[in-house]
């Protein structure tokens, strides 16, 4: 198993772990954190698979994609957190109303 494949598999593992947390947890902060774990997983897949050239020099294009992806993830997290605060202010709970606290 090459290190690239190891990174990619770890990334997939993180993605699945985050997806599980997203579904299982009702608290919005946990859901938002779950997204960040999932996002990190995708970035790890991208960065790991960059070592695909025979010469061993990593392909820079996926790295540029990861940087762009991180910028997008930061913006999305900021929006999610501020929306969570507004939801908490309006309903008194940091969770979606039809989901029970687990």
């Amino acid at each position: 198993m090459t290190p690239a494949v190891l990174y990619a598999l770890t990334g997939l593992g993180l993605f699945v772990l985050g997806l599980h947390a997203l579904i299982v947890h009702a608290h919005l902060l946990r859901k938002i954190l779950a997204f960040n774990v999932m996002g990190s997983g995708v970035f790890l897949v991208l960065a790991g698979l960059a070592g695909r050239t025979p010469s061993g020099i990593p392909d820079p294009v996926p790295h540029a994609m990861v940087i762009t992806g991180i910028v997008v993830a930061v913006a999305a997290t900021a929006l999610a957190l501020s929306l969570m605060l507004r939801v908490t202010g309006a309903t008194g709970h940091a969770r979606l109303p039809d989901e029970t606290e687990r």
Partner: protein
Amino acid sequence: MDTAVLLQSGLTAPILVPLIGALLAFVIRRWATPIGLLSVVALLGAVILQVPSLFADGPQRLAVGGWGTPLGVDLYADGLSIAMLLMSGVVGLGISLYAAAYFRGTPARGQAFWPLWLFLLTALNALFLSADIFNLYVTLEILGLSAVALTAIAGGADALVGAMRYLLVSLLGSLAYLLGVALLYHAYGTVDIALLAERIAAEPAAWAAMGLMSAGLMLKTALFPLHFWLPPAHASAAAPVSAALSALVVKGSFYLLLRLWIALFGELAGGVATLLGLLGAAAILWGSIQALVQTRLKLLIAYSTVAQIGYLFLAFPLAVGTGITAWSGALYLALSHALAKAAMFLVAGNLLRFGGHDRIAELDRVVQRLPLSMAAFALAGVSIMGLPPSGGFIGKWLLLEAALTEGRWAWAIVIVLGGVLAATYVFKVVGNAFTQSENPHQAQPVPATMEWVAFALAVGAVLMGLIVSQPLALLEIGDPFGIRAEAAVP
């Protein structure tokens, strides 16, 4: 290619004009409304100017920054892209005029609305013009984030919770899509759709990417049974925002799914096309029945969107064998649905403003008091039901033709049944508009602009059924459905 050439090409205008408008509207808040209206008019003008050169020279490709494929980001416009741009321009202008009147009483909300709305148009237009799957991810994400923020500006617990759920779903969809992009890039070393189409092969990496990207985009398009987030988000938003979400935003992810499917996945799909069609058929029946049992008008219209999205997915199985007829039918439905659904949500906004509620049973003879709005609702309903002469009729007719020439009766029955159910829920609203309510309501004045814009959009949806050959000719420019290229290969 230097800056001058870049500016000469009109292809960047549909992205740059609303982007500059959004930044200006954000900085110069006092002038947000005039800046917004001006930007949308300029945007529509820029798109219309593209049409003649498209008919003369065929599809256009622009290497932004002069890098070109495989490294750079390319913009690409064929007939399909321009048709979608025209849709967002025309409906966008209608929604903008409406919003200018709608937010007059609440300037703070208006100032929040304009930059976000212009960002949404920027992202949507960039999505229609992008030719590489990673740039498409970025535009998809900007589209989702601005749509969520727009949903939230209505304030109130319902809108905030609706926006939160919408955000979670939207992020999940984009992440699944991005993972697909990562797999495709690893396997084929490019993100350009045209290059990918040459290199893609039936192997596990491509299948996994197809599954992830299709699932993510289906979630964002709200295909049954992944539609659960749509009704609360679309129904709780402010009227112009609801119209934008239902008419335009879901079409963005549908357009992307269509592009990927035609260029990349169509060959490898096998039974998946049938699965998409079955989900579409379920969406038509389930969405229509849900629309029928709703007691609030905005929820009825939102569930109607769930049903109409179902029609778009019928094209996937029908296109096997009939190709262009099925795709044109679905796209014609998408374009006329944009006009009709925007008109319906704007009418719902008028009724809410007028009576202070949108309970269908208590519409209270609204037909005599807001005749123009109810006429708009009925005309838009004609297109949603698919009665002639309307855009909805042409779209459904093409789909029916595709189903019948191949002798696939089951699909044809679903198409017709969906029309009957649509007629039932439209007449339920129109019927209640004639009867007097037990609790007559305190009527508030509705600005004339808000009524006329809804009416004009509804008339547009009907006119789509009278001018058929030009839109269909536009859709086929540059062969976006890959029919001729396929036929050329022996």
